[in-house]
């Protein structure tokens, strides 16, 4: 009996196929991720390598010059007179957008989290700009913000003389920020609302018994418990703000002057209007570094900001 059991085990071992359950599963795993991985390699990673390679060249598409110049384009970054103003505009735009977007999203989410009749209708309406075509939304705001447009018309009707919104550097910047905030704040609002609804009600009841004011409840219970959502949405919003292009192109074309020329728009101008692919690539690298540093910094900060993680 023992001998037959041993011989069976030997036969089993000999017959054991190459394609075990684990191996088959691992192969399936690779096959499942293959399309995405191939696509990312071809359309993201290789282009990133190329953009770095291009940035070391003087490359004027019109004159069809392509010459290795080492770090000259990077030195040009330091001497580019417009660049400090472009980076300043980018910083103001992104900071303004994130602060306004996050605080408005939180306010709307708190309002929508009340038990009120018809609250779904309000939720739908606040969210609706998210699904309106971006350029259509920007065009109608551009129409509204004309000197003789709807906004100044209504201001005049109550006796206020409105500025020429898109022709003055300060109001133009405010306009592009505000137009973008109203367009997209609904997304963060919904994410905050979902987070608020996940806060256990017992905590508020306990706090009320202890006599905590609504403001204190919000600071001590709500904010800490929704902090993971706040962190994630702030990363997405900041990275998204650095990609804003269509709104600038349609509303102000970066003007007046270069007051609303953010980095993406400047990069587009250098590469595709002035045909400077080399310098355009250097600006792309700058954009990439900014996105990477900001994302990394926020991720590092999560231990300080985020109260708990699932």
């Amino acid at each position, binding site marked *: 009996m023992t001998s037959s059991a041993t011989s069976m085990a030997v036969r089993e071992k000999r017959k054991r196929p190459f394609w075990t359950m684990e191996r088959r599963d691992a192969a399936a795993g690779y096959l499942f991720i293959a399309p995405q991985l191939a696509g990312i390699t071809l359309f993201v990673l290789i282009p990133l390598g190329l953009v770095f390679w291009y940035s070391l060249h003087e490359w004027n598409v019109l004159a069809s010059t392509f010459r290795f110049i080492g770090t000259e384009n990077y030195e040009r970054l330091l001497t580019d007179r417009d660049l400090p103003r472009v980076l300043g505009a980018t910083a103001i735009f992104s900071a303004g957008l994130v602060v306004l977007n996050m605080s408005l999203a939180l306010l709307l989410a708190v309002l929508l989290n009340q038990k009120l009749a018809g609250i779904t209708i309000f939720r739908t309406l606040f969210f609706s700009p998210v699904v309106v075509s971006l350029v259509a939304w920007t065009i109608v705001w551009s129409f509204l913000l004309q000197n003789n447009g709807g906004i100044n018309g209504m201001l005049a009707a109550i006796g206020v003389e409105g500025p020429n919104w898109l022709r003055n550097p300060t109001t133009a910047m405010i306009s592009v920020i505000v137009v973008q905030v109203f367009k997209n704040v609904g997304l963060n609002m919904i994410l905050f609302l979902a987070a608020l609804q996940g806060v256990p009600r017992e905590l508020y009841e306990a706090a009320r018994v202890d006599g905590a004011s609504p403001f204190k409840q919000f600071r001590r219970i709500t904010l800490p418990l929704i902090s993971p959502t706040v962190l994630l949405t702030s990363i997405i919003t900041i990275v998204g703000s650095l990609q804003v292009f269509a709104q600038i*192109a349609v509303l102000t074309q970066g003007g007046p002057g270069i007051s609303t020329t953010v980095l993406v728009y400047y990069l587009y101008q250098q590469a595709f209007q002035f045909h400077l692919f080399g310098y355009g690539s250097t600006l792309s690298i700058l954009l990439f570094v900014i996105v990477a540093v900001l994302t990394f910094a926020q991720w590092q900060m999560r231990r300080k900001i985020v109260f708990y993680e699932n």
Partner: protein
Amino acid sequence: MKTELAPRTKVLVYGLMCVLLIPFVFPTWWMVTSSVKPISQIFAFPPDIIPRSFDFTTYGRVFELQPFAQQYWNSAYIAALVTIGTMLFSSMAGYAFARIRFPGANLLFMVVLLGLLIPSEVTIVPLFQMFLSWGMINTHWPLVLVPIFGAPSVFATFVMRQFFIALPVELEEAARVDGLGRFKIFWTIALPLARPALAAVAIFTFLHSWNLYLEPIVFLSSPDRFTLPQALTQFTDAYGGALWNVQLAAASMTALPVLIVFIIAQKQFVEGLAHTGLKG
């Protein structure tokens, strides 16, 4: 926070919400109503919140000035292809990263996540050069391929992975004991359960493709290839001044169908978004 509010507070909250609603709702209203105003009334003072008379000829002009039907079709079929492709590939990758154990999975997941740090704005110059060398400039290929595999699809993969991680594994394990292959399990068991996450991915992806602007203006040059966002900016007179009413008519035709679909399906829409792994 869900407690019954005092009546006075209720009135206050309603009032505050109605005021806050104005910048969210009025632009869409103004777009549609201005598009049917005769040109003489479009900058009327004081502004007419409700049009005094209607002029629908602007809608015909949209199709005279641009191959608008063709442009509409371009945007629609590109967005459809991108949405289907992204749903398929990102759910497969997300499933594998969540469920299947294979050597190097963590490292490969980091590589995929790297895609999130590299928006296509960063790589637009080499992408242009690549598609130029493949003879694909002024075709729709870049607008289909780059979104399916670039940063937006990485985001979709992340959402799908988070969803599958949270999904109970028992059903799939029972199927494995019964000898079902991985692909069968994925296709017949996991994917149907992932409907909420897939809906969210579909919405994000569709809107992203539908709104794409930088890529079309870089890659496309002839009007019959244009997509809608690009076409909307082309309604100008001989001096480059905007033909506001025609432009707003085109904008309304672009915005309203999606808006109507959203209002009909808003429950699935909003809840789909809320129930992604984004909750943190």
